[in-house]
């Protein structure tokens, strides 16, 4: 039997995020090692349990949110200053501008790599992800 894969390998195997050679090696080990089978089964059960966590109700006030959406103007308006705005509105705009500035510069990097190959994940319910059926039927060992 090969050396036990560590928990990081098992976790990445569960996510199908190992190289194909590592996937094959880990799968082969798993099929013959009850110790790793148990660890793997625990990881898989945790994953299944997490898929059952419900979506939470937001209680978002949509009409109000839509009213709050700022005008979207690509040209910077900073030079126009605060004169035309009342005190409260000016402060709110400034704060919003800071948030948006942060989002645009640090949070939203549009140069993301392509994830087209992962589109399949969108159409598959999480609980149904099982690329290696033989490992889905590992039996719960008696405790």
């Amino acid at each position, binding site marked *: 039997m090969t050396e036990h894969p*560590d*928990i*990081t390998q*098992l*976790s*990445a195997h569960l*996510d199908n*995020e190992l190289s194909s050679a590592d996937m094959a090696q880990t799968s082969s080990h798993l099929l013959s090692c009850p110790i790793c089978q148990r660890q793997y089964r*625990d*990881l898989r*059960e*945790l*994953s*299944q*349990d*997490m*898929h*059952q*966590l*419900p*979506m*939470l*109700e*937001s*209680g*978002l006030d*949509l009409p109000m*949110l*839509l009213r*709050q*959406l*700022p005008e*979207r103007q*690509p040209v910077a308006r900073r030079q126009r200053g605060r004169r035309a705005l009342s005190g409260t509105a000016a402060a709110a705009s400034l704060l*919003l501008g800071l*948030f*948006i500035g*942060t*989002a*645009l510069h*640090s*949070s*939203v*990097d*549009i140069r*993301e*790599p*392509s*994830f*087209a190959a*992962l*589109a399949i*994940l*969108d159409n598959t*319910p*999480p*609980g*149904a992800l099982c690329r290696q059926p033989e490992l889905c039927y590992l039996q719960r060992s008696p*405790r």
Partner: protein
Amino acid sequence: MQTTDGELIRRARAGDRQAFGELVQLHQGRVFSFVRRLCGNPDNALDLTQETFIKAWQALPGWRPDARFTTWLLRIARNTAIDALRRARHEPDPLPEDYLLTDPGPTPSRQLQNSRDIAQLEALLARLPLAQREVLLLRELEGFSYQEMASALDISEGTVKSRLARARTAVLQARRDTTGESDD
């Protein structure tokens, strides 16, 4: 869903607020749930959800279809929440047992016994260090790949891999400690 999203995004990018409103309706539960679990406090989570969508509205002209819209949106949500946590240095509050439940998702092969089990799992998640909690949520609830997480969190895929394994190990261990189950 994909087509609808695509058409709504196209219209919202062009400035159609109604289309953006439909996008908000489609995605608000997911954004709120993620932010709520990430940062704890439900009032903060609602504010952060609103803030996320306002930022998304502003940034939408820069969105490119080479990233999933939800990936892009959750990245904004995550950064908004992290910024707020940093500002407040606020440790998350665990979810109460009677928080509102909605769609339980597809029928899984293994069922948590009851709402108490779900609340227990929520509480264990809330106790994880933030960096571990976010990778676990993004992976398990949002289906992010390691590459998507690495990009969203600005860390390497190797870090994603090890952080996720640590998060899972920590939850499993905490669960054993809670139930008194032995580790061997």
